[in-house]
């Protein structure tokens, strides 16, 4: 069933998707998570601390 807006021929306003709306905070969160994992990865792999 068509909505009133569609019937009148105008396109309904599209709300941007979650990823698009939150791209800045999400990208900052990814940076933070990568630094967390990276600091451990650095010691484990680059410094070869595990398994010596």
């Amino acid at each position, binding site marked *: 069933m068509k909505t009133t807006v569609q019937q009148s021929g105008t396109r309904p306003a599209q709300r*941007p998707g979650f990823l698009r*709306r939150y791209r800045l*905070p999400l990208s900052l969160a990814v940076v*933070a998570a*990568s630094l967390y994992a990276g600091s*451990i990865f650095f*010691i484990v792999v680059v*410094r070869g601390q595990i398994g010596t």
Partner: protein
Amino acid sequence: MSANTHSQDGAHADVTHHAAGEDHDHDHAEHGPAYGPMRWITTTNHKDIGSLYLWFALVMFFIGGAMALVIRAELFQPGIQIVDPMFFNSMTTMHALVMIFGVVMPAFVGLANWMIPMMIGAPDMALPRLNNWSFWIMPFAFAILLSTLFMDSGGPAGGWTLYPPLSLQMGDSFAFVIFAIHFMGISSVMGSINIVATIFNMRAPGVTFMKMPMFVWTWLITAFLLIATIPVLAGAVTMLLTDRFFETSFFSAAGGGDPVMFQHIFWFFGHPEVYILILPAFGIISSIIPTFARKPLFGYDSMVYATASIAFLSFIVWAHHMFTTGMPLAGSLFFMMTTMMISVPTGVKVFNWVATMWKGAMTFETPMLFSIGFVIMFTIGGLSGLMLAITPADIQYHDTYFVVAHFHYVLVPGAIYSIMAATYYWLPKWTGNMYDETLGKWHFWISTVFVNVLFFPMHFVGLAGMNRRIPDYSLQFADWNMVATIGAFGFGFSQLLFVYIVVKAVRGGKKATAEVWEGARGLEWTVPSPAPYHTFETAPDISRLAVR
């Protein structure tokens, strides 16, 4: 990025900016806060959350301060006087953790919550529900941290730096300490993401980056520092946790690990953390001095670039905390020189503050007194920092009370004074009431006398070789330690006056005008006092206003 949308969160998706000059504050006057405790638990309002952070910081200030008084009471005379040495070590460790993560950082986040949206003409923070979550993690984190003092194995006692192998000798309560630090970190990172998103996406039309008040600029840079460094601390303490409880050997030499590597990782976080604790203070002082000098801030652009330079340099100086671990000559020289380079942008800032005051029509209300106190005493702390940057000299000063004197000068008459200056400056805007100016001045002068009685003698005993983090000391240090302890109790009790002044202003007093201060500039002074529960739901017209 567009500065004219408030659509980061669903709560603001339908808010649009309209033409300027509308009386926006009356449109939503009926939407006041809810009543009862649920208001504070469920609030997403930036002013409520700012108040929660500030009250939380004040409570923690007295808890951390009580720990400091235990330390100073023990050090009043040589010998073991009052507390068990292990408890003394717990007090030094907890005092630092509480003051850094529980007082200075939450107080600055509280100020950011209150002021950044009002300074940039935004209706709220970009992510209000995340904001609520950021705050409410904090009381739980600190409840966990403080609870370790009541556990069988006691609180953390290896210093706030948690250096292994000493920290790995702690009992089972260590897991709670690590858990608490993780939660504090999550709170800080979420708060920082919120601040960056707010400043990037929520500025009113016309509030360009180079028109933002310095407090907003310093917080933007601080937020990036936090996002870049807190996860590294989290990684380091996660590895401590697995070393302690899961038989890994990241930092255990016996298992092939490297304890000094922990120090590198810790200070990669720890030195930018120092600037996290002081950059917002620079922003506050840069707001207050122009108001009471009745002149625009001297060298605004250079202030912005100096702040960014300090932030950049803070990432390449960390090993100056580790000169005594032994490092190649090239390493020592590199970290000595980069550390000294920080004095250049910092000097630019001090010069600009002095130049702002130069030939200004100055008056000396309480916020200005605290700001001038900041400039003078922070500079004293900065100069002793330069002495500590000199590698061969640092080997003499390392782990002495000279270091304690240095960082307390930058953190107490530095960061804490800036928070007090900010409180007096914006309190009329928050409460609608003027604080008691006479008592405010008394608070400043009593605090300033005692803070110097407390910390200045530490330079003397430190240069004479008194070690930090010990409950006992040689007889030759007795006199100055007695003086320092008198200063500590004087400074500590004078803060009760601060609480009295704040509570008195919250409860009533002479009504404040919207502008409050004659020389005040910026959007926050265009809204009534107290600031309405909702501000700038319609974007302000900044074409006729001085935003900074």
